[in-house]
């Protein structure tokens, strides 16, 4: 999904404040045609607020929003070709599933026959045909979620906005629905902007993602870019697990206490600046004999072993870091080495897996 597609939605320097709270600060983003875009961030970081501004329920305090190049601020929510799937679903409890889904088309005053055909179609796609004549109160959580989705999708919006569409579901169902959402998006060919606070969900579903913190956009990119090349400590920590060593930049690495750890220093960081060198637990290995020259090597002592089934996480105390370093080793390696708490070992990693960022 690296192919550049046309921009559908452009958010330009948008800010939003509610009295004392600044919910969104100077966010600029472009959403491309047909992509599955995830907005990720911790609770209260302004995700819902951003989505509500796109849908037209909040007015930006500053900045503008362009849809297909045109400013949409004068268009009221009921005439925006965007649809929002609410965090609470907001289904109409007095209507059947069919009534809920056909509502949006009735508002467009389409002919009865067309409405019926399109409703039947979407009931099929979202596997709700069986439940068509039931009321929301008689549905399971997963079914309700699909009604909310079908109700918004049937409008064929330019962009479908989904606010935590899977948050109300249990873990198993959530995982299967992640793939289901992706399938649906492919099938209907609509641009999706999905809000989530679950980083794994964003990584699995998104073509591209944006990470927000306190209303500020921290990074935008493909899941791979964001995971492998986080721009800053917040993103590095928020997405997945990360080990940090704090020190200052030198040529070709970061000096931590007396040790120089190798890694590419980004051009915007000069020499002698406070910086952190970061490495993911799954990039660390247990030293086994000699190692290539461009590798970092640290000796340490195992303090804890956590078993996950698929792999094992070791907490290793090193002389140059306050915090224990997490090392993820495969079940195979774990069998080979027979780890025990208190054991001394050496950790190694290639300099290409080091990430250096300002601290």
């Amino acid at each position, binding site marked *: 999904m690296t192919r550049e597609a046309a921009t559908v939605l452009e958010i330009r320097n948008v800010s939003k404040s509610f009295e004392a709270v600044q919910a969104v600060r100077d966010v600029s983003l472009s959403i491309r045609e047909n992509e599955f875009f995830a907005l990720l961030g911790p609770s209260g970081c302004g995700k819902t607020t951003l989505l509500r501004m796109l849908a037209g329920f909040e007015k930006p305090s500053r900045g503008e929003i362009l849809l297909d190049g045109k400013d949409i601020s004068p268009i009221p929510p009921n005439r925006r070709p965007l649809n929002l799937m609410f965090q609470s679903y*907001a289904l*109409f409890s007095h209507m059947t599933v069919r009534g809920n889904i056909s509502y949006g088309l009735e508002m467009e005053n389409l002919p009865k026959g067309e409405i019926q055909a399109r409703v039947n179609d979407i009931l099929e796609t979202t596997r709700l045909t069986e439940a068509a004549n039931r009321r929301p*109160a008689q549905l399971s959580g997963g079914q309700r979620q699909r009604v909310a989705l079908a109700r918004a999708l049937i409008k064929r919006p330019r962009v479908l906005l989904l606010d935590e569409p899977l948050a109300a579901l249990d873990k198993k169902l959530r995982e299967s629905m992640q793939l289901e959402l992706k399938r649906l998006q492919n099938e209907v060919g609509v641009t999706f902007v999905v809000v989530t606070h679950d980083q794994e969900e964003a990584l699995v579903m998104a073509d591209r993602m944006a990470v927000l913190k306190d209303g500020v956009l921290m990074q935008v990119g493909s899941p791979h870019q964001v995971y492998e090349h986080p721009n800053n400590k917040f993103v590095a920590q928020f997405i997945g697990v990360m080990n940090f060593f704090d020190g200052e930049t030198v040529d070709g690495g970061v000096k931590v206490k007396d040790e120089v750890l190798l890694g590419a220093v980004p051009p915007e960081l000069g020499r002698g600046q406070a910086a952190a060198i970061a490495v993911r637990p799954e990039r660390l290995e247990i030293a086994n004999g000699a190692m290539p020259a461009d590798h970092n090597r640290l000796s340490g002592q195992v303090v804890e072993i956590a078993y996950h089934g698929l792999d094992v996480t070791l907490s290793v105390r090193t002389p140059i870091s306050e915090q224990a370093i997490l090392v993820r080793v495969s079940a195979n390696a774990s069998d080979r080495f027979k780890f025990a708490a208190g054991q001394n070992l050496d950790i190694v990693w290639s300099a290409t897996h080091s990430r250096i960022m300002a601290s």
Partner: protein
Amino acid sequence: MQTSRLQTAVLIGPGLGWLALLMVVPCGLVFVLSFFERGVYGGIDYVFNFGNFARAIDPLYLNIFFKSARIAGLAALIALLIAYPAAYAISRAPRRHQTPLLFLAILPFWSNYLIRTYAWIVLLNREGFLNQGFELLGYQGEPINMLYNDGAVVLGLVYNYVPFVILAIYSSITRLDPEIWEASQDLGATRFRTFYRVILPQTVPGIAAGLVFVFVLSIGNFITPDLLGGGRVQMVGNLIYDQFLTARDWPFGAALSFVLIGIMMVLLFLQAVLANRAQGGGRG
């Protein structure tokens, strides 16, 4: 933790006892009484018969029932038309204004029912404030007779019960998920269609509660028709009052009361069914 049977009994005991003592027992007495006859000198002859019920559906009395129902129905409808927009406006006002506005709506209850009804006489009578006002505005003809007719009774009833209807509808509007307004708009509905297709149907329980409330209290009311309707507007309430206190025909009064109670029960039952349906229970 589950509440034990004993706990349940202790908790609902007083309420149930109160109801039994002051509702069920008197109703039972009224019911029993309605099958006897008035004695020659105003006492009660304990002869079992259905005569009182036969008499109650005599056209003379049946018409009074119909007329009472018409007046009560009209009062309920007008009260609803006044209360719904008011309740809607209050529920959409900024949150900090809502409680003061509701307080204002129920403010009349701080004065006595009779005094409030007499106040209407002062306003409406031939020499009353309204007629004086018209005169000041240049009206020349005969003073307008606004008192002692059906209209005055309806006005008095509406005035008295509107606050209850506002409360009933306000509470049913605020119970709605605040996001359904936006969801409807998001799906392309205008404000009017949102109201008509989503909000109104979901507040049917409040509407039904308000209507039944006004109707039930109005159809049995005898003070307002007596004071504002003069001797001319007789409603069931007045009829029953007369049977007990003037004609001293307790058994017939009891029979009339029982018919009235029956009508109220049916209405309350219908309202409960409606409320249940609107809450999304039941299929279809």
